[in-house]
């Protein structure tokens, strides 16, 4: 038995922690691939804000997209709700309301992560070397938190909600990173172009910790079609969209009154499995990704309705108005 408000906070805590880690990974692998770019080639830093769907927000505060401004925006800017600092801060705020349902050490871990990011975010924005170290530490601390979840939390509804939040956020991020490719315009020269495309795909896989797995499971050379299929359809890879959906299905099966959510999730996974990935050009890929994000959004909305607002179905008629009033206030 779990309070609807608590369930909602658990879900958002998990999403925020996952988002913080994903952003840290994305930054580290991008920085890494930059070092390998051919001379004369430039990188559009604005792409990183675009991936997160935050280009408008970024443009509002920062006159120019360069390495420094993008890093400040993605790492320490509190006005950006998806910055690492903001995510960790929200996760900590969520956790404050959840201490009674989480393992006792959880608050200490998340609080430590928060204190670490607060103290080290400025250094991480300053130069690449410190950035790598700080973000790596963020990733490691996050791993310790996930370990604590799976190792010391009863696998109850609270646990399933955390897992749901983590996987839906992860699936969402994978689609966003894929979408990056449709947003890059490559040079005309076909030799340079091919090399660059492969480099960027490598960086993409790297940012998802997928490069090694890809080479082992798919091929030595990274080609767009293979990479797209791998990141969307390969059930073995834990950050592929299909894998995340499968995890979510499992969670829903273990949750109460989840029939509709199970179906919704299974259906999307099936659609992805049947959607051909060969010969997707940039425009088609972008449209396809848009569609996937919409459908992930639908699952998210259905989950909200089903669990966080479920109590409204049981309200006796005499207090119905009160319930609606409260909802309107939230």
């Amino acid at each position, binding site marked *: *038995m*779990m*309070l*609807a*408000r*608590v*369930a909602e906070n658990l879900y958002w805590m998990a999403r925020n922690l996952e988002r913080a880690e994903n952003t840290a990974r994305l930054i580290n692998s991008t920085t890494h691939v930059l070092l390998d770019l051919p001379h004369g080639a430039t990188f559009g830093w604005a792409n990183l804000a675009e991936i997160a769907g935050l280009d408008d927000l970024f443009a509002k505060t920062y006159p120019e997209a360069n390495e420094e401004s993008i890093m400040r925006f993605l790492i320490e800017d509190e006005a950006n709700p998806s910055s690492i600092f903001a995510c960790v801060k929200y996760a900590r*705020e969520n956790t*404050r*309301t959840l*201490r*009674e*349902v989480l393992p*006792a050490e959880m*608050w*200490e871990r998340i*609080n*430590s992560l928060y*204190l670490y990011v607060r103290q080290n975010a400025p250094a991480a924005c300053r130069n690449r070397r410190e950035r790598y170290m700080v973000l790596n530490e963020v990733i490691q601390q996050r791993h310790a938190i996930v370990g604590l979840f799976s190792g010391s939390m009863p696998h109850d*509804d609270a646990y399933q909600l955390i897992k749901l939040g983590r996987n839906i956020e992860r699936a969402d991020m994978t689609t966003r990173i894929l979408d990056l490719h449709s947003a890059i315009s490559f040079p005309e020269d076909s030799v340079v172009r091919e090399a660059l495309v492969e480099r960027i795909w490598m960086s993409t896989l790297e940012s998802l910790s997928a490069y090694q797995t890809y080479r082992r499971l798919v091929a030595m050379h990274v080609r767009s079609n293979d990479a797209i299929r791998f990141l969307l359809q390969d059930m073995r890879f834990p950050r592929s969209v299909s894998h995340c959906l499968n995890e979510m299905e499992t969670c829903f099966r273990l949750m*109460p*009154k989840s029939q509709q959510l199970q179906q919704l999730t299974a259906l999307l996974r099936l659609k992805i499995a049947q959607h051909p990935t060969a010969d997707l050009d940039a425009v088609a890929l972008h449209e396809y990704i848009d569609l996937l994000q919409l459908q992930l959004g639908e699952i998210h909305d259905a989950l909200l309705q089903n*669990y*966080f607002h*479920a*109590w*409204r*179905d*049981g*309200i*006796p*008629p*005499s*207090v119905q108005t*009160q*319930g609606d009033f*409260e909802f309107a*206030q939230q």
Partner: protein
Amino acid sequence: MELARDEYATHTAHDELLDRALQPRAAAQPLFDYLNSLNDGELAKRQQAVDATIMAMGITFTVYSEAGNIDRVWPFDPIPRVMGRKEWESIQAGLKQRLRALNLFINDLYNEQRIIKDGVFPAEVLEGSGNFRPQCVGITPRFGVWAHICGTDLVRDKDGTVYVLEDNLRVPSGVSYMLENRQVMKRIFPEVFRTTNILPVDDYPMQLYQMLASLSPREGEQPVIVVLTPGIYNSAYFEHSYLAQQMGAYLVEGSDMVVGADDIVYMKTITGLQRVDVIYRRIDDAFLDPEVFNPDSVLGTPGLMRAWRKGNVGIANAPGAGVADDKVVYAFVPEIIRYYLNEEPILANVPSYLCMIEEQRDYVLANLDKLVVKPANESGGYGMLIGPRATPEERDKFAKLIRNDPRNYMAQPTLEISTAPTLVDGILAPRHLDLRPFVLQSDQLYATTGGLTRVAMRKGSLVVNSSQGGGSKDTWIVEDAA
């Protein structure tokens, strides 16, 4: 380890750990042996470890200010306050006696009012009480108990006498800090727990749970217990969540619950509505139920009083219990104990002057420079006048306040409250402190082993409230040497 000998040289208060010759008292001897065994600088190192631990454990409280709400780390002093078991047990008996009498008193006020009819307690005091709830008249909660949880503030005067300073019967806080302080000490000074026989404090959450469970209207079934908090911005939110966690209870906000037309309290869960049996509420009466009290409250749940009056839910502390948490009522507690229990009070009350009584008021007005003046219904040290330290303007202001509303003020002589050595800039200096034990009552009585020691960290300061720069210490009740 070094003592602030200058400060101690001019010291006149009782020190909890050191006698007049600055030798450790018997109960504190093992502690001092241990402290003396530490190398130079070791204590400072441990102090840093304490700060880091508290930061990581996230033991915080919130201070409201114009700059927004700041989450402050709970200031903690690593030198514990030590008391022998024998002395403590006598205090414990006094605390239980007091709460037993106060509950009889509250139940009487809301029912027959025998104590007024018998001329022991003046009707005017009740009429002027800001915390008497007419909505509670005629109700007798289970066991006749209204104040299930009491935080009693104790201080020790120069001559060693322990006095009750006030009885907090509304929503007393601080017990989580008592529990966490012990955890911090165990992490930082594990060695000393081997050499000293320190009585454990950690049975409180279990006792609290049992007390709350005994209030459940559905006997024989596993009760659903919730802790009702005003939310994350309340200064005691840390404690609300801590206690819920320790008890395995649900931490709810007012909007997480609804009361049906069936006068039953439900909470909103992921699978629908679920019945609630017992509410440990940490919000004031006034905000509890907008149907009955403050209609603008968004913190409470409409209908709670309906459900409680019908006996469909247990509420601790019961609405209206605060009637006995009033500094004017306080003055009558020794009489209340004699009246209901036919016993002599075990714990002393500070002599009190009631401004509602003319000759006592005249005395107060003539001696404002010597007295502490307190408003009847405030808590947290707000709205007080400490006469000897006040400016003539402040005293004039209070004289006016007293004349305008005499029922609302009482005065007491300034006690020279005791001190204990406290780590200040690397040396041990005397700092004033008090003690807040927590007492529980349902069908049984329980008092914590020790309590929360609060210490005024600033030199000479008497204000120990965390909202005003106070800190805290672990409190050790130790076996007396044979």
